[in-house]
């Protein structure tokens, strides 16, 4: 018979690491909450009949967040055979709050105290026997990250499931509360499953809205229950929800006193606290963030001696692709007698297009590696915390920044991560703005222009990142002042995990996943696009006859591109090449680079020795290149991300609003940058006036009074009103 074991615990308690360890799955564990709202299932290694269910990280079984709703619904309705409750041993007091609720579910519970290696390192002691006695269930020790005790914990859960023995309900509440709960249990007996009777009774005592909604009790029964709750509230002089919360913590405190011995005093600062005093400092946090991101982008994509990514990319472009592959392949094909058109298709089409993108793989791998380290070390969670402070000032929620952190890898999961935002308006706004953050596929565009026109300056990539963040903030301010998005920002609660040495396995896995996915796309979508582009730029009508053209300015692609190009003239890149590259970027953003590779003949070395970067520098100035880069970073994302927007918005109108807004915003910003930049070059014209008007409009939208903002602070008053 099959046994189902649910893994439940607080965010960052090590659940997913344990899940991976037990099932052999390889889901990457981010160091922030809120990206997982689904339950994942896997079979225990070596036990085909044991199903492990990974639930989202939760702090309680109250339906405050989407994660808590998902986990609670599963535990109450689907009733697993046992619950393996992962408890962070370094934060045991807060973690046991959920444990006290899980025990009430009437399902066999095994508590696995995780991070015991850290507990011991801190000089603390947890007596698992005493803890088990107090909680009325088995307690085991483990260290998920080191793979110690994982299997023992799973086996204990299997044994508990086979015994079907529910733990004794510990004495969490005082007499008057137990009295009220007993009356509620009596009132609802027969209406709910006897196994979860106590849990339902406690929830009704708390006046849990979701519970009241689901049970659909008759009015006279509700009045009867309410009388018992009100009597208890009067006796204890507090509201029901607070009574339960306080008594749970009081109980936990008694358990801790009995079973846990801390070396340091409760108020002593840990190493993480000391680091956070500087890293999340009100004044220093932002400059440190800028310096960290600058260092990351400089090492990955800069032009300095420490820019490992650029050095590797230069070698890949100049030696591997240009000399070894293109040079030798072209000569070899000619030597064996291949027709010139076939040599052109392979060398100038496929190799030039794919090679232009592949050349940036080393830079991307270094970037992903560094970002994965920051993530694993715990710094990215601090960035969310820092950004929450900034976002909140502008009426945005820090919760919106989590999808943006995810989007640095790829926009699609970033957009999907927005579904954890409960507030519909905030969620829609996050979906609309997440695409502004430069994803991995946009990195080659930045790398190409930084190398071709800015001497490989690390500041170009850093500025691209902060332009993305700036676009999110500016959009947030503007949109929050409109009727569609007005309202208070959603509350954002997140735990800052302790800093720790990054795990090589985690970092390399995240780097490889992202990098390999990029390489695969180069070998499929980019390859196919390059062939189509090669055909369109190599063939056309000359004197009314269709055939191969010598000059690609007379090609089919140039004819189409020239029709669209004037639209981009006010942004400084009104050439057909620029227009075509912008549109091919919709297939995949790295396709912009592949397009330039095909159009400028990446494989060919010009007579003067110039290759793609020099040729590109001939058609773009630093200003037009920067304007092109900004437009392509902020405009509509690739089709895959547009699909994700459509899925998440679940509405065609909203999808078009999102795409329209992104394109419009990108156009305005790129035009302002280009036209005002031209003023410094001594040019003043109609475009400058339009750009100044657009800038004035943008400033007005930013500074105008928010007529939809409440002047009063809104506080949930449900429990107060119930008194």
């Amino acid at each position, binding site marked *: 018979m099959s046994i189902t074991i649910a893994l439940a615990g607080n965010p960052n308690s090590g659940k*997913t690491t344990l899940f991976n360890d037990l*099932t052999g*799955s*390889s*889901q*990457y564990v*981010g160091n922030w909450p809120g*990206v*997982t*709202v*689904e339950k*994942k*299932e*896997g*079979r225990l290694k070596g036990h085909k009949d044991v199903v492990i269910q990974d639930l989202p990280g939760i702090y309680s079984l109250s339906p405050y967040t989407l994660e808590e709703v998902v986990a609670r619904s599963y535990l109450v309705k689907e009733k697993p055979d046992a619950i393996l409750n992962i408890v962070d041993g370094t934060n045991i007091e807060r973690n046991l709050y959920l444990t006290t609720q899980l025990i009430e579910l009437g399902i066999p519970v095994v508590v696995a105290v995780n991070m015991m290696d850290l507990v011991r390192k801190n000089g603390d002691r947890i007596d698992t026997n005493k803890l088990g006695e107090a909680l009325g269930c088995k307690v085991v020790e483990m260290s998920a990250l080191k793979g110690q005790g994982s299997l023992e914990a799973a086996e204990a859960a299997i044994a508990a499931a086979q015994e079907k023995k529910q733990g004794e309900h510990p004495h969490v509440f005082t007499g008057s509360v137990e009295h009220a709960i007993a009356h509620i249990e009596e009132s609802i007996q027969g209406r709910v499953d006897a196994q979860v009777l106590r849990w339902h009774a406690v929830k009704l005592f708390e006046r849990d809205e979701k519970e009241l909604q689901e049970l659909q009790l008759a009015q006279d029964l509700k009045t009867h229950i309410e009388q018992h709750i009100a009597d208890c509230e009067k006796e204890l002089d507090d509201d029901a929800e607070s009574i339960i919360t306080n008594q749970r913590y009081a109980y936990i405190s008694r358990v801790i006193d009995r079973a846990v011995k801390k070396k340091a005093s409760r108020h002593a600062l840990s190493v993480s606290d000391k680091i956070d005093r500087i890293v999340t400092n009100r004044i220093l946090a932002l400059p440190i963030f800028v310096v960290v991101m600058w260092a990351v982008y400089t090492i990955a994509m800069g032009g300095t001696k420490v820019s490992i990514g650029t050095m590797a990319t230069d070698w890949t472009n100049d030696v591997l692709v240009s000399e070894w592959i293109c040079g030798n392949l072209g000569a070899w*094909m000619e030597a*064996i*007698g*291949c*027709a010139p058109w*076939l040599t052109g*298709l*392979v060398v100038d089409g*496929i190799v030039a297009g794919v090679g232009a993108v592949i050349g940036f793989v080393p830079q991307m791998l270094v970037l992903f590696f560094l970002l994965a380290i920051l993530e694993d070390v715990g710094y990215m969670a601090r960035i969310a915390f820092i950004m929450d402070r900034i976002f909140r000032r502008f009426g945005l929620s820090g919760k919106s920044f989590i999808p943006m952190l*995810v989007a640095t*890898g*790829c*926009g*699609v*999961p970033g957009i*999907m*991560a927005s*579904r954890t935002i409960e507030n519909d308006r905030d969620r829609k706004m996050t979906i609309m703005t997440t695409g502004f953050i430069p*994803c*991995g*596929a946009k990195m080659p565009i930045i790398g190409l222009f930084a190398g071709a026109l800015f001497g490989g300056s690390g500041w170009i990539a850093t500025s691209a990142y902060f332009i993305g963040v700036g676009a999110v903030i500016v959009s947030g301010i503007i949109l929050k002042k409109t009727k569609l998005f007005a309202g208070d920002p959603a509350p954002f609660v997140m735990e800052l995990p302790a800093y720790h040495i990054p795990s090589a396995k985690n970092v390399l*896995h*995240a780097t490889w*996943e*992202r990098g*390999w*996915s*990029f390489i*695969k*796309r180069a*070998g*499929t*979508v980019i*390859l*196919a696009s390059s*062939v189509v582009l090669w055909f369109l730029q190599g063939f056309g009508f000359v004197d009314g006859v269709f055939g191969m053209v010598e000059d690609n300015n007379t090609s089919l692609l140039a004819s189409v591109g020239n029709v669209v190009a004037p639209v981009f003239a006010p942004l400084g890149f009104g050439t057909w090449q620029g227009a075509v590259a912008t549109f091919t970027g919709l297939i*995949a953003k790295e396709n912009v680079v592949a397009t330039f590779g095909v159009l400028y003949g990446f494989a060919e070395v010009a007579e003067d020795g110039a290759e793609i970067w020099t040729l590109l520098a001939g058609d773009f100035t630093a200003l037009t290149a920067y304007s092109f880069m900004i437009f392509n970073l902020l405009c509509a994302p690739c*089709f*895959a991300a547009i*699909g*994700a927007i459509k899925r998440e918005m679940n509405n065609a109108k909203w999808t078009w609003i999102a795409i329209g807004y992104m394109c419009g915003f990108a156009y305005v910003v790129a035009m302002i940058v280009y036209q005002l930049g031209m003023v410094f070059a001594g040019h003043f014209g109609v475009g400058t006036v339009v750009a100044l008007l657009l800038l004035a409009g943008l400033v007005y939208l930013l500074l105008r009074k928010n007529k939809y903002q409440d002047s009063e602070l809104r506080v949930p008053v449900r429990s107060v009103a119930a008194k």
Partner: protein
Amino acid sequence: MWLWLSENLATLVGALAVAAVLALVAWKIVRDHRRHKGGCGGGCGSCPNAGFCHPDAQSAEHR
């Protein structure tokens, strides 16, 4: 005929090889599209929300 074939053998073999690669690429793109896979640059294996895109495939993957 044979003379033409022998003169253009390299081109024919090369063109067939390119056509085979393109057919393989097209097949892979269509297959991935049908499986709702591959659109995302992040790699579905590491995505905590992968189950939303293809719940059946993901569930099978873990088993």
